[in-house]
């Protein structure tokens, strides 16, 4: 039942403990499923926020020990101590406090409000700091085994999307494509749906998407019961977890399978943006370099070539998407301080859109290498 190999678990825990040491954090309380798995190899219940609230879990990691609370014993590696997480706030806080012992600086993710207050009370001398100061630096650089899993995850997801594309025909509903996709993933052994699959028709005119914020391209995010018509541009974006690692596959497909001249022009534009970004993608480049490369194609006067408040690119790893987020309101100044380094995995998702013609968006995952980058995705269909 434990999917993660012992070397993978050991490598991740070593990175985490090194980051703890650098941040001078004595202990961590981790409550995100991805963090829990990264630190311990334990696999928590996978579900939406209400499922997690009903079955809360946590990991407590110190320089010498790792404990898991609230996860079935069979889903926790044997070398990791496991126990139930009491359901009342006070008892849960006391259990965490017992494990934290004399830790003075504790990196904490998030707790239900009552549990958080009870933990503060139980450890009056402790200083709580955001755990992300430890977890994000540790997770930013992937080990070779992590990269292999991310590559495998991408390929499984791409194959499932490819299986569904022929079903994008006039008369089919968007939501039916979701079902076909989830089934195609499950047949490949991938059953943890991380992000609601998007199979959404692009708005062709800004007036068709009055809800959109200014500054970016018009878009829809929410798959609906809408029935597709011939020629609709269907934006696809799917995120599933394979062995805990995120696959994120996106492309745009013309309903009926035959792209128009306008569709082809939009795809060419997307390709141009992608290539401009890839051209600057190497160790030592900054996130701002990628941002500027994309804007260099489209110009800084018009909307950014991605939806606002989404992004040009983001990281992916265990448990979902992660920093760096490139193209957000954090701005170029913040992006100047984000340096690309070998082992970082990015997901590029530029979008080309023109009034009246509609849009084309696709995604490409890459790992930064010593000399540049290597794509983990195949070109979009």
């Amino acid at each position, binding site marked *: *039942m434990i999917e993660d190999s012992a070397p993978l678990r050991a490598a991740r825990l070593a990175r985490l403990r090194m980051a703890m040491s650098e941040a001078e954090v004595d202990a961590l309380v981790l409550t*995100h499923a991805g963090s829990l798995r990264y630190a311990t190899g334990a696999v928590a*219940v*996978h*579900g*939406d*926020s*209400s*499922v*997690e*609230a*009903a079955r809360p879990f946590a990991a407590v990691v110190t320089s010498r020990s790792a404990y898991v609370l609230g996860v*079935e014993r*069979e*889903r926790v590696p044997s070398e990791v101590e496991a126990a*139930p997480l009491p*359901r*009342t706030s006070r008892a849960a806080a006391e259990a965490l406090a017992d494990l934290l012992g004399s830790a003075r600086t504790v990196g904490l*993710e*998030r*707790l*239900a*409000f009552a*549990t*958080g*207050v009870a933990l*503060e009370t139980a450890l009056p001398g402790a200083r*709580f*700091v*955001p755990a992300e100061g430890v977890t994000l630096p540790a997770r930013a650089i992937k080990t070779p085994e992590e990269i292999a899993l991310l590559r495998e995850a991408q390929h499984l997801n791409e194959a499932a999307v490819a299986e569904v594309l022929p079903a994008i025909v006039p008369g089919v509903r968007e*939501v*039916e494509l*979701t*079902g*076909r996709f*989830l089934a195609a993933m*499950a*047949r490949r052994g*991938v*059953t*943890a*749906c*991380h*992000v*609601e*699959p*998007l199979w959404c028709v692009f708005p062709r005119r800004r007036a068709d998407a009055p*809800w*959109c*914020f200014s500054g970016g391209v018009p878009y829809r*995010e*929410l798959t609906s019961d809408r029935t597709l018509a011939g020629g609709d541009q269907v934006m696809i974006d799917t995120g599933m977890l394979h062995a805990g690692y995120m696959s994120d596959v996106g492309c745009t497909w013309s309903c009926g399978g035959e792209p128009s001249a306008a569709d082809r022009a939009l795809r060419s534009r997307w390709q141009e943006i992608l290539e401009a970004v890839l051209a600057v993608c190497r160790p030592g480049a900054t996130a701002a370099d990628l941002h500027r490369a994309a804007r260099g194609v489209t110009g800084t006067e018009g909307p950014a070539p991605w939806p*606002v*408040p*989404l*992004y040009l690119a983001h990281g992916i790893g265990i448990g*979902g998407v992660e920093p760096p987020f490139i193209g*957000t*309101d954090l*701005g170029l100044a913040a992006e100047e301080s984000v340096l690309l380094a070998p082992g970082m995995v990015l997901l590029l998702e530029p979008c080309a859109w023109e009034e009246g013609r509609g849009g084309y968006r696709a995604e490409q995952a890459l790992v930064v290498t010593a000399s540049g980058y290597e794509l983990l995705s195949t070109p979009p269909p």
Partner: protein
Amino acid sequence: MSRPDPAALARERYGRVQAAMARRQVGALLLATPHLALFASGARRVQVAGSGGTVPTTVVTAGAPAAVVFTPDPDGAPPWMPRTAIEPLRWDRERQLARIAELVAATRGAVACDVLAPALRTFLDRLGREIVDAAPLLAEAAAPRTPGEIAAITAALAAARTGLDAAAAAVRTGVTPARLVAAFAETMTATGSGFPLGEGRVWRAGPGFTRVASGETCAPGDLLALEFGTYLDGHAGVAGVSVVCDGSLDPARRRRWFTALCAIARQCRAGRSTAAVRDAARAAGATQLGLLAHGLGVGIEPPLVDLQMDDDRSLHAGSVLVLAPVVEGVRATRALVVRDGAARWLEPAP
């Protein structure tokens, strides 16, 4: 049967949230947990597995016509929500918190929050206001459900049950849980449902229950417990059943499970307590896998009834409970709505 309008249901819920805030003298409600944010605001977002972030994405201020939501998915806001209440999600945490502080500053009374994280705690302390737990307020706003909400939950339960039936029908020697998830997914979306509540789970009954890994095959005679959940129109449905691989469930065992279910259901009346529900389960010889029972609404909700706990909470009329007793290795779920008199089943009997 026409489906209830989720936007109208959300507006009713928002009114109940405002009323609960007024009763508790809460001036601002800050929510960072996705299903709670949906509950209070009615604004749907692309659903993502996991517990959510550490910075609130929804702010309800006392007397406001709608919550202010910070979202990347503006197409998910209900039509009654003013455009000015929909703001882009800020990735810059300090800017997001500064905007929340502006909203809170215009209110009086306590500030209620659903989570605690170090940076958020620093922010809350700076507000200089009484900070309280949002959970009791939200629980108060959750009940009683309106007939429209009950209908929406019933539709979500039916969607989950339809998908579960397809998965159960696919159980045969050599099948894997992944294949059952595939059967569930295709059927689920036929009903209009687009996101599973969680990863579908399959257990093998023995001396205890053992989770069957997604690639593990089922063998003849395996007694399997299946549980799947889904969302439909912003409401959650969950369904569980026991099946025997290439065999049939012993009718006597199934009857004993049903007898226990009915004994537990008899305690599900307004004013009775979760302790009474547990006592009835024990008296009927029932155990649990996970929880004995839980509430249902926009997700899994309180009360969470656990045989290992000794809490004692009153049941409220209009709340929906999913009962999941285990008797002699048989586990299945059925949902009901609590009333002053006998509970009303929301699903047909097995």
